[in-house]
């Protein structure tokens, strides 16, 4: 199975960049986006399998970004990440098609497992389609 292409969307640069470095080190094709609009801009040019999306971001928040992503790239899986256990946003995100909902600080192995699972689902979806 080909390694997933991952877009990490988080306004916390230190977090974002480190996660991307670690993912790339493990052979994934990961890229950072520091805001929702930036992520959507990148998505116009390139295709990704999985997006890690922070909910709490200044400007365009994660839920709005998720809505746009699902509209424009329905086949891409989205994993929500948040530091706030806002159940409403979690439930809302899941109902809008997010694949998983993880609470920061997340264990890296857990994150990898979620990515793998999301990637597999994406591939399955592609086969079904």
């Amino acid at each position: 199975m080909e390694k997933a292409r991952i877009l990490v969307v988080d306004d916390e640069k230190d977090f974002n960049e480190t996660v991307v470095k670690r993912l790339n080190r493990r052979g994934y094709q990961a890229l950072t986006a520091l805001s929702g609009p930036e992520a959507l801009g990148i998505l116009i040019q390139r295709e990704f399998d999985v997006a890690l999306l922070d909910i709490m971001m200044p400007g365009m928040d994660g839920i709005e970004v998720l809505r746009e992503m699902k509209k424009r790239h329905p086949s891409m899986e989205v994993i929500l990440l948040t530091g706030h256990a806002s159940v409403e946003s979690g439930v809302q995100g899941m109902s809008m098609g997010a694949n998983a909902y993880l609470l920061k600080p997340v264990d890296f192995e857990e994150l990898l497992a979620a990515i793998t699972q999301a990637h597999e689902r994406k591939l399955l979806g592609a086969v079904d389609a």
Partner: protein
Amino acid sequence: MKTLDFKRLRLIIILFTLGFSLLPLLVLGLTVKQRFSSAYQNALQGSLRTLVDSKRNAIDLFLTERLAQLSTLAGALTYEEATDPENLGRLFSQLQTTSRYYIDLGVIGMDGAHLAYAGPYQLGEMNYKNEEWFAKVVAKGVHVSDVFMGFRQYPHIIIAVLRREGNKSWIMRATIDSDIFESFVKRVQMGRKGDAFLVNEHLVLQTKPRFGGNIMEDMELPFRTEARFPGTRVQDLVVNHRHYLYAWTWLENKDWMLVIREDPEDELRPLFEAEYLIWWLLAGGVAVIIAGTVLVTNTMVRRLEHAEREKASLDANLTQSGKMAALGKMAAGVAHEINNPLAIIREQAGWIKDLMEEPEVQAIPQYKEIADSVHRIEHHVERAKNVTHRMLGFARRMEPVMQEVDVNKLLAETVQFLKTEALLRNIDIRMSLADPMPATHSDSNQLQQVFLNLIDNAIDAIGKNGELTLTTRYDASHNEIAAVFTDTGCGIPPDKLDKIFDPFFTTKKPGEGTGLGLSISFGIIEKLGGHINVTSTVGQGTTFTVIIPAS
């Protein structure tokens, strides 16, 4: 919170109620007694006055009749007819048929000697010239004497009239037995100590009283006797510490005074009885009022106390809920702010770990130190994460996922988690589960979290060697399920007992407990529609009771 002093309140209510209800009752009682007594006294005095008046009239009438009879008789007789003993004897016997109190009849000349005499005594030789009555009848023409013994040594009175017949004058004199007056007054004597008698203007007795004196003796009266007065006087007087009702009046035709003394004891008996009745009724009324007041006040105060206690517990619950909500918000904010840096720290440590897989890095002499250090960073990030996640769990106002839950089964499952821990510490976990136990409509995960918290706490409280008893009960009357956790641990001092549900309150060492377990449990059970109670005795143990509604 300021609690009412219920003992004082009870006392005040009782005193005020008694005051306001007894005062009118007493005033009413006393007024009725007063009025009744005075009305009765008035009636008594009125009847006595009537009696005295009628007796006086009778005596007056008697004297008037006798005087008129004698005057008529004397006026109808000539000197010759009057001095004829035979004629006089006949007239005398005729007089006696009209009134048997005539003792004798005499005709006396102006020299004081008898001209004729009819009667049982041999008085023909008597001379009355020096007698007091003789002088008076000569002067006034008519005379009624006081009672005296006279020559006969028998109490009597004399009625005498002067007859002028041309140039001749003579006196007709009748003697009347004074018993007649006794018979008049005797009949009016009333009561055990009542009395009735006649006295003359010098207070010399004209009849024999029942008590304290004899005829023609001086009589002492308890009232002041002035000169004649018209009408009748009635007065309540005390003689020898005894109440008497006195009535006295002057006769119209004679300077005698009729005195009647009534012993009111018998007459007043109905009054006394009425008074006793009033006192008894009053006492009964007072007793009933006191009993009623105390009863009503006790009930009222008890209700009040109950309501106050309920209000206090409600207040405490509200305070607790409010505290929870505020702290929940704060906890959520803090947790979020900390979670982000924690995530970064974890990722940095993870990156270092990643890099340490490189052979060049592994060649560094301090490689092991660095690896160890990174490992510790990860460990403590994990620890911090646990705290923030629990804080979020506490803050979470998640709607519980409701389903039918078997509390017995859930509790047994939960115990399994901690069985090894309990075994290691030599803690005996005993289960006493109610059977049958109805299901409860609840969130099984949250309920389990609460049970886990409580068992965990109990094990910590015991430390080593002890007992933990888990009991479930079903209260059908309230349709409630109770899960009771009783440990033989160290107990909680009373001053800390009301703080144990506060967030971040912990008795454990820093790093061992977050102080959130019980407050989360409290919030969960509250959301599930139940409540947690706690009782504790220091040194003996603590009992937590979780009460949730059965479905």
